[in-house]
Every structure is written in structure tokens, then in C-alpha cells.
């Protein structure tokens, strides 16, 4: 091996070594970043995305953190996450208690978005689902104490659709009604106006990101009555009718009437005097 070849050999070895080192270093950075992004990309409960935001995972891949939605919001409720905030850096959010979405009809924040992270298909603000209001504290909501409040019901931009009042009996006083606010997920946009308006020190009604606020029925669940309606009849063989071992002329009504004795009183297998029935055993002896 000539001198020059040996030199090349060493250089090649050095080159490969250096490259490996760099690759390993960068790989480690990658692992760190991946782990960090997993941790950083969980949206905390009090941070609500602007209207039209794609599902969180997609949103984080689509939003380029430009802040144009923040700039075009006429009510200045939107903020960009800062390093150290619980929300991923640079992504827009609002906090319902301090500044809820005022539900502009022209939805300027969506129009401003250059990447469709806020879905431009959203034309009707009432169709937006920023989150879902939940009456989280039934112990402190004063409606449950029988007091008239209904502030959340009245400020709701979809009054009586997203929040309705359910009249219930006040068992404490025994003679009054409770007007319980009930949120309906098919109408609630998650704007947060109810949360801001809640008169308590700490709101009893709060808006949460939808995935936190809603349960989900198991995919295999079928509600029998709905299926029956869809199919126009029972889907399984109806139960065989239960036979009670009762004397002739007597039948049992399941829906609440109980024992029914048909025919004339004198035809009854039972005596009209209940004592006879009760004492029947002793008489025989």
C-alpha cells in the first residue's frame, strides 16, 4: 500500500466516523423532539381552538403558526401559544372564561387561515364545533338550589337550542320548581359565552375541547328501539308470552294494574270476604 493510499484510507475512515457521529447526534435530537412533541401536543382543557379547527392531531400538522387568525379576530380573543404555555408553541387558542368566541357571521379567523388548518368549508358559524359546554358543577350551580339564574341559557347565541331549561321538582321546598340548564351537543358550538357569563366565582358551566367533554358509545352498541324503528319491526323472535298459574277468570297485568279478576263478583273463585281467603287453610283443618 503506498503512502497516498494509506492516507486516503485514514481519511475515508475519519469521514465515515464523523458522518456516523453526526448521524447519531442528529438521531438523538430527533428522538428527543419526537418525545417532546408527544408531550407538547396534548391540548389542555381550558384552551379552545378557533372555529373550524381541524381535529387536534391534524390541526398541529396543518397550522403553520402564522398568527393571521389572531390578527383578524375583531374581538382580539385569540392568542398564540408561547414556549412554556401548556398549548403547543405558536398555535392559536382562546380561553372561554376571559374571552369567548363572539361567533362572527363572516368568521374572519377562518378566512384568514392560509393552510386550511381552520377549515374553509365552514361557512356557517352555527355549524362550528370549537368545544362543548358542560355543566360541570351541579353542587354549586345555583339553579340546582332552586334559585332563578338562567344566565347561561339567556346569553347562549343558540338560545333554547344549545342550552334548554329542564323543569324539575324542588324536593327541598316541596312546592317549587328547579330550572336546570341542559346542554345539547347537536347544537352547542363551544363558543364559551355561557362560561364567561356564569355568575359564580368559578364557572359551573365550562367549555371543554370536544374529545374531553363527550363520551363515546362502544361501536358495537345498538339501541334496540332505534333498530326496531329502522327495520319497521322486531329484529328477533318476540318473547313467548309468560303464563301465570292462576285460577280461571284471573289474569295478571304487567304494566301496573296487577291482578285482574274478570266476570261477575259471584263467579269469582275468591270469596267477597277477604277473611275467608286468609282463613281458608284453617277451615280445612
Amino acid at each position, binding site marked *: 500500500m503506498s503512502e497516498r493510499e494509506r492516507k486516503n484510507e485514514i481519511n475515508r475512515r475519519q469521514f465515515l466516523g*464523523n458522518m456516523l*457521529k*453526526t*448521524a447519531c*447526534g*442528529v*438521531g438523538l*435530537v*430527533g428522538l428527543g*423532539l*419526537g418525545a*417532546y*412533541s*408527544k408531550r*407538547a*401536543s396534548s391540548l389542555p382543557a381550558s384552551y379552545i381552538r378557533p372555529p373550524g379547527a381541524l381535529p*387536534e*392531531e*391534524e390541526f*398541529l*400538522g*396543518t*397550522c*403553520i*403558526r*402564522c*398568527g*393571521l387568525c*389572531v*390578527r*383578524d379576530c375583531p374581538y382580539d380573543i385569540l*392568542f*398564540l*401559544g*408561547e*414556549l*412554556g*404555555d401548556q398549548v*403547543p*408553541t*405558536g398555535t392559536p387558542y382562546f380561553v372561554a372564561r376571559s374571552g369567548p368566541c363572539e361567533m362572527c357571521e363572516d368568521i374572519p379567523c377562518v378566512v*384568514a*387561515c*392560509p*393552510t*386550511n*388548518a381552520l377549515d*374553509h368549508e365552514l361557512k356557517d358559524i352555527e355549524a362550528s364545533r370549537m368545544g362543548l359546554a358542560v355543566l360541570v358543577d351541579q353542587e354549586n350551580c345555583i339553579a340546582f338550589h332552586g334559585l332563578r339564574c338562567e344566565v347561561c341559557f339567556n346569553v347562549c347565541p343558540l338560545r333554547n337550542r344549545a342550552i334548554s331549561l329542564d323543569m324539575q321538582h324542588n324536593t327541598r321546598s316541596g312546592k317549587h320548581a328547579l330550572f336546570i340548564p341542559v346542554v345539547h351537543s347537536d347544537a352547542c358550538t363551544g363558543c364559551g359565552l355561557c362560561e364567561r357569563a356564569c355568575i359564580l366565582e368559578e364557572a359551573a358551566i365550562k367549555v371543554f375541547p370536544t374529545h374531553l367533554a363527550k363520551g363515546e358509545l362502544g361501536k358495537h352498541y345498538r339501541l334496540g328501539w332505534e333498530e326496531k324503528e329502522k327495520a319497521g319491526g322486531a329484529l328477533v323472535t318476540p318473547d313467548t308470552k309468560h303464563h301465570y298459574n292462576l285460577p280461571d277468570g284471573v289474569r295478571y297485568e304487567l304494566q301496573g294494574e296487577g291482578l285482574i279478576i274478570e266476570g261477575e263478583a259471584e263467579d269469582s273463585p275468591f270469596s267477597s270476604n277477604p277473611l275467608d281467603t286468609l282463613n281458608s287453610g284453617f277451615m280445612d283443618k
Partner: protein
Amino acid sequence: MLDMKRLGNDAIAEKGWFNAHKFLILRRLSQLGILALFLAGPWLGIWIVKGNLAYSLTLDFLPLTDPYVLLQGSLSGVVPQTTAIIGVVIVLLFYFLVGGRVYCSWVCPVNMVTDLAAWLRRKLGIRTTSQLSRSTRFWMLGLTLILPFAVAGGIVWELVNPVSMMFRGIVFGMGAAWVMILGIFLFDLVVAKDGWCGHICPVGAFYNLVGSRSLLRVNAVQRQACNDCMECYVICPEPQVIKPALKGEEKGTSPVILSSDCTNCGRCIDICAKDVFKFGGRQNKTTEALKREGEINRGVRV
């Protein structure tokens, strides 16, 4: 040995202070001016530019999109609006013409931090060197473009990117991002010369590739006048780019600095007492050819 304390004195003596700092001043005006345009809205209510470097809208009309951010987004499935695409085309075209890394030295706010670190290094005589290869940034670039596939929830690099974080921080609110910036400053000051911008930053690496065929380049037009003072090598953040152009006369290589590592910052032009460097085109004209052209032009005038 080059005396660090005298760095730039010759140029100042020869050309005057202003001409020896011309491009430095212009670069700071550009960097601060861009920030000022973005800040005029939130601070003074004068809405000229909205957004930040990732995407901005000027006078509600001109969209400008950062192609690197949008590329990361596209890899994680973004379908951008037409305005964003127009913005990308404009930006790419601009950097293709003036040099990709013009972003680094004329726009990026982190440059002011790393420049300060480099200046302090020279003043304090810190001479630490690091093993870090200058190609690390391309590995980083590769990594940031793989992550959108590998990690659900997309534009991972933008969670920590100090470049976008610093600019966005100034315009929208900094949070704890200043820790990151301080980190870069200390890294550049103590650990490695030009550590961040010259070795690690994938944003610079991306713009490096964008400008690999760019038209505006620094030319060592008067390379025969070079007196080997070495000051350009010291002041240059990517000194490896100078030699082929400056010392290529015998080999007959072009006096144009062709490496796209060059940030077109003009520091070499400022610091050279002999006016060796000038901004020029990409065409491979030797000094001799230029001289001949000069004579021809003079001849015509006479």
C-alpha cells in the same frame, strides 16, 4: 498572526467608518425594519404587514409564505390555500435571485444574536473550537423533514424552532422562548464559533439549498490586490467559501464566491481595505476578462 484588536482598522483608515460598515448597517436596517413593519400593527395600529415570517399578508394584498414551514406542513398533509402557494412562489423566486442565505443575514432575527456572540468572541479572545461538522445542518434539515411522517401531529420542528420562535416571540409574545435564544447565544459564544447558524440551523440549510444556483453573488473582482491580511476569513461566518474565489487565480477558477453557504452578508466587502470584493452576478468572469472589458468600455467612451 492577525491582531484581533486591530481587526477592521485598515478598512476604516482606508475607506472611512461608514464605508467599512456599510453592509452591516444595511443588514441591521433590513432586520430591524422587517420587525418594525410587523410590530407597527400591534404597537401603533398601523397595519402594513400581518402575521409573521411563517406567513404574512402585506397591505391585505401580498402574501408571503415561508417555503420551509409550508414544506414541513405539506409532508404532514397540509392542503394550502392559493394565497399560501402564491406566497411560496414569490419567496422562492426572491431568494433564488438574491441568494438563499440572504434570509439568514438580512432577515432572520437570530442573526443579530449570533453576530453579537461572534463579536464578543473576537473581543474577549475566546477561541474554542468544536467537532461539529458544517454538514450537521443538512442532517438536521433531513430530520425535520422526516419528523412530520414519523410523529403524528405534524410540524414538529416548529415546536422548538428558535428562528420562528424568536420572530413570533417579538411580534406576538415571547413566553419562555428567550431561554432558547440565550442558549444559542451562549453556545455561539462559548462552545463553537458560528455554532448555530453555521453548523446546526436547518432553516439556514434549507435556504442554502434554495439559493444554490442564485444569481447575486459576492465576487473577488480585485483578487490580485489582496494583501493576505486574512481579515475577511476572520469576519466571515462561513470562511470556507472565500478561498476558491480569492486564491483561485493560478488555478484559473472563477472569482465568484459560488458556494451557497455564503450568506451574502457583505462583511468581507466591508472589512477589505483593498476593495477586493464586490456584489455581482454569477457569471464566471476572471479579473483579466473584467479588466479587458473595462478597457473596451473606456475606449468606447474616449
